Each structure stands twice: as structure tokens, then as C-alpha cells.
């Protein structure tokens, strides 16, 4: 199977300070791919490079065979329309209702009539369990709802890939589990590929088809595979500690 995302010899650096050093991996269509690692290992940095916010220091990242870092104009726009991003705090526009937030990409990139855009935006919100909250402002809803609304907005143009940055962070276990169920439902029913950055173990076991683990000490990927397998079979002491939730000194 052809990978939907290919990361080749990728190095990330800020001001000459290398954060991630020469990593290579593939993400395949339809899978829930999780990027793991301790705090400060460069998970979010990797995600921000994958969505084209920063260019790689070395190497390249291909989305459906196209390099977002070098693409310009129409090609860059075409790639961006194929991806959706949910930021850690939701990043909903505070001056717009939830419906308007979801409508925005439709208004900008399609020629759909107004009632069609309203209907599609309502359906996206229904899909993430926010039916009835269309006219709420982001400041009027809870943190979990904001994240779900952000997913609805990210799905407005039916992207093939959804990037989620710490979807479970700061949520209670029930809301977190509901969000996991939502990710699985969307992956299964819509065939969306998910790239998720997280370090919440229950979420990882629940949603991940495959994970990569980054280690800030070596600045590389130290493990790849299914989370349960890594927990049970990895010989890397740090990976075992991570999955068994043990302190460094234990």
C-alpha cells in the first residue's frame, strides 16, 4: 500500500539547535497513527512541520506524494485542503458561533449556496455530537466541546488526513473516552487517516493502530509498532517505563 504521508530523513531545528535528528517513517491511508514521547521530545514540533507551518531543516515530508514545504500558490492550497488540523486549545475563532466556525472553510473554498453550507456545517457538528450548539459562541462551551467543534471545523472540507494535537489533554476521563470513540468512528466510517500527538496512555491503547516513540535524549524514533506489543515486548528500558508508567528512578 502506498503511504499517504512519507517523512524522509527529517531533521527539525530551531536556531541551529536540533530537536529531531534524521527520522524516517510512513503513515498509511485509514490508520490512526500516534506520535508518542515525553515532554519536550519534539512531538508537537514534528506535527507542526508535517502540517507545513515550518520547513524542515533537512529532509522532506510528503503528503500524498507532494511536498508542502516547497509547494507554492495553488499546489500548496490543494494540499492544505486535503488536511485538517485540530490544535491543542481548539483555536476556534472567538468572534464566530460554532456554525460560523465550521462554515468558514466552506465559504472560502466552495461555491455552495448559503443553505447548503449551513446544512453541511450542521451535519459536521452533529457528527461530533454538537447538535443543538450551532449558535453557541466558543466561550460558552466546555473544553471538550471546543475540541470536538475544532474537529468538526477541521473536517469541513472532508480532508483525507486529520492531525490532532493533544486531543485528550486537560479533559476528564469520560470526555476523553468519548473523544477517542469519535476518532475511531470517523476513522472507520469515513476512512480518514489520523495523525495524533498525545502522551495519554489510555487514549493510546484505545485508538492507535500504530505508534512511533520519540526520545529527546537521542532525538530519534526509539520504537515503532502497536502500543500493546511495545508494552509487552520492547527491550528498550525507556519505552517499557513509558508504557508501564514508571518513574525514571524506578
Amino acid at each position, binding site marked *: 500500500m502506498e503511504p499517504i504521508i512519507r517523512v524522509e530523513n527529517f531533521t527539525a531545528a530551531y536556531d541551529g539547535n536540533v530537536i529531531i535528528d534524521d527520522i524516517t517513517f510512513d503513515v498509511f491511508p485509514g490508520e490512526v497513527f500516534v506520535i508518542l514521547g515525553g515532554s519536550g521530545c519534539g512531538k508537537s514540533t514534528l506535527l507542526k512541520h508535517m502540517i507545513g507551518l515550518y520547513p524542515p531543516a533537512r529532509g522532506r515530508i510528503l503528503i500524498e506524494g507532494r511536498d508542502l514545504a516547497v509547494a507554492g500558490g495553488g499546489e500548496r492550497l490543494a494540499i492544505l485542503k486535503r488536511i485538517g488540523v485540530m490544535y491543542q486549545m481548539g483555536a476556534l475563532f472567538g468572534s464566530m458561533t460554532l456554525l460560523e466556525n465550521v462554515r468558514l472553510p466552506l465559504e472560502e473554498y*466552495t461555491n455552495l449556496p448559503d443553505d447548503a453550507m449551513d446544512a453541511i456545517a450542521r451535519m459536521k457538528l452533529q457528527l461530533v455530537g454538537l447538535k443543538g450548539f450551532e449558535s453557541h459562541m466558543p466561550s460558552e462551551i466546555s473544553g471538550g466541546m471546543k475540541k470536538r467543534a475544532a474537529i468538526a471545523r477541521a473536517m469541513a472540507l472532508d480532508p483525507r488526513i486529520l492531525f490532532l494535537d493533544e486531543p485528550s489533554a486537560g479533559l476528564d476521563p469520560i470526555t476523553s473516552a468519548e473523544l477517542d470513540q469519535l476518532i475511531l468512528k470517523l476513522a472507520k466510517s469515513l476512512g480518514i487517516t489520523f495523525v495524533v500527538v498525545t502522551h495519554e496512555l489510555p487514549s493510546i491503547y484505545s485508538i492507535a493502530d500504530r505508534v512511533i516513540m520519540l526520545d529527546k535524549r537521542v532525538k530519534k524514533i526509539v520504537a515503532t509498532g502497536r502500543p500493546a506489543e511495545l508494552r509487552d515486548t520492547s527491550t528498550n528500558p525507556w519505552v517499557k517505563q513509558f508504557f508501564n508508567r514508571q518513574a525514571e528512578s524506578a
Partner: protein
Amino acid sequence: MASAGASLEVRQQGDSLSFLLAGRLDSESTGTVWRKAFKTLDQSKSRLKTLDATGVDYCDGAGIGLLVELRRRGGPDVEIRGLGEQFRPLLDLFPPTPGEDLPSKPEKPSIAEETGRATMALLRDLGKQVTFVGEMVIALGRAMLHPGEIRWADAIRVAEEAGVNALPIISLMGFLIGLILAFQSATQLRIVGAEVFVADLVAVSVVRELGPLMTAILLAGRSGAAFAAEIGTMKVNEEVDALTTMGLRPMRFLVVPRIVAGLLMAPLLTIYFDLVALVGAAVVVGSFGHGLLTFTHHVHNALSLTMFLCGMIKTFAFGLIIAGVGCQRGLDTGTGAVAVGLSTTRSVVAGILLTILADGVFAGVYFGLGI
């Protein structure tokens, strides 16, 4: 053919309609089909019975949206047939719900209701301001009795930002206003050969009125807005709540240092503005052939200590108003980035308005006192 990507064929069968959809139903091509389909339903008295999607070779959220909305419009009896198996799971996420109507748009409130709401909002706002002024007076009174309690490091930092860093813009404005005022006056006074009295005119108007007022307006736009934005962002980030739960009163911690800075900086900036404006006027008077000595002599004769103090007393009031309004608007910030913008705008508008009102009051009082 409706578009290059999608097409709609309408078939009339007795008193019912069938829609035959074909092609790519995606967010780029569905729009044209959508318009045609709903226009047909609006114009026809027949009921929609069948949606035939046999010819659809791609369907995303927009296409599914079309099918779902057409089914909702036609009722749960509408049969969707021929949709590819790969698109069925997407459609199944939105099962038909009989009797469901679209959420109606909220009714526009009447003028009376809107007036009532606006009045209530105004009264609530007034109440908040009265409370704030009361708390501020208590906090300032306490700070005067116990100067050691004032966070002087914060006050000096704010004073530096509001005062020292404002010197370049004050210099530019002061010089230009002095220059323009002198030039405009000179062109009139020259007719009667009295252009040397430009010095008297500019000195009196700047020291007594324009200096304090222009400096205050600049302070409101620059520092009042900064106070509102900074405290507003702290409010949004729950930093103000953190202060409260740490037992630190926002009034002492945030407001008092800024008011102290405002009270210190408004008079100093005004004196600086006055001086720079006089330099501007001196340039114009000099260009008419009168020396600097003549200019300073006229300025000295025109001004008095009382006049200078009249201007200075106002600046303390202006500093208090601008810093107070900035802090009050900041603390009254709601949630989100929009609220911060709103607080900043309100602080500038209210700051300038109240400053001009206060100036009017001072003018009345001075007139009454015969100063």
C-alpha cells in the same frame, strides 16, 4: 449537465418527482446541483419520491449533505437508491428523523426590547464603574496612608513604559502642534503687524489648554489602551483569578501601580509637551525675523504661575481618569480575544470622552473662580 463534475436530471412520474444524480458530488461540484434541486422543489407542486444516485461515482460530506437535505425536505419516505456501498456508511451517520425541522432563526427583538436591553446594560455598566471607583478610592487612600504597600517596582515599570517610552511621539506631536498653531495665528496677526504676539497666544493656549488635553488624549490612546489590553489578557488567561485566590487583591496589585504611574506621568509629559510646543512656535516666530530673546520675553509676560498650575491640576485628574478607565475596562473583560479588543476600544473611547468632559468641568470652575 449541471457542472463538469456533477449532474442532475429531473423526472416527473405522475404527481411525484425523481432526481437522478450523477458524477462527482464533492464540495466543489455539489453547489450547482444543490441550487437546481431545491429550485425545482420550490417551483414544483409534486413531491420528491426517489433519489437515484446510481450514477454517482464520488460522494463526500457535501454530497451526503445534499442527499440528507433532499430527504429531509421530501420526508422520510424518500428513497435513496443506487448509492455506492463505499458511501453508504457516511449516509448512515445521518439517519432520517421524522418530523424534525431545521432550528429556526431567533426572532429579531423589537425596538422596545432592544432599548430595554441597552438601558439595562448601560445601568449595569454604570453600576460596575461606581463600584470600581469606590474600590479604587479606598485602595488609593490606603496606598497614601501606607506608601510602602504600593508595588513601586511595578509602578516604575509602568511609568517607564507610559512615560519615558512616550517621549518620541510626544516630541513629534508637541513640536508640530506648536508649529502649526503658531503658523496659523501668524498668518492672521501679520495682517495687523502683530505677528510677534504669536508667542503670547501659543504660550497661553498650550500651557492652559492644549498641552494637558493633547497629552491626555495621547496617553489614553497609548497607555490607557495598553492597560486595558494587558489586564484584559490577564483576565482571559485566569491570571486575575490566580491573584485573587493567592489572596492578592487585583486592585492593589494591578490597578494602584498603574494609577500611580498615570498620576506621575501625565503632569511630566504635559510639561514636556508644553516645552516642545513652544520650541515649535519659536521656530515660526524666528522665521518672521524676531529673535529668541523677544520670543521668551513675550512668553514670560503672557504666562503666570496660576495659569501654569491651572494646567497642571488638570493633568493629575486626566492621569487618574485614563489609568482608572484603562484598568476598569481591563478588569471588566469577558472571555476570548474579541473581549480584549472590545475592552481596549472602550478604554480609549471612554478615556478620551471623560477627559474632555473633565476639561469642560475645569473650564467652568476656573471661569467661576475668575482664573
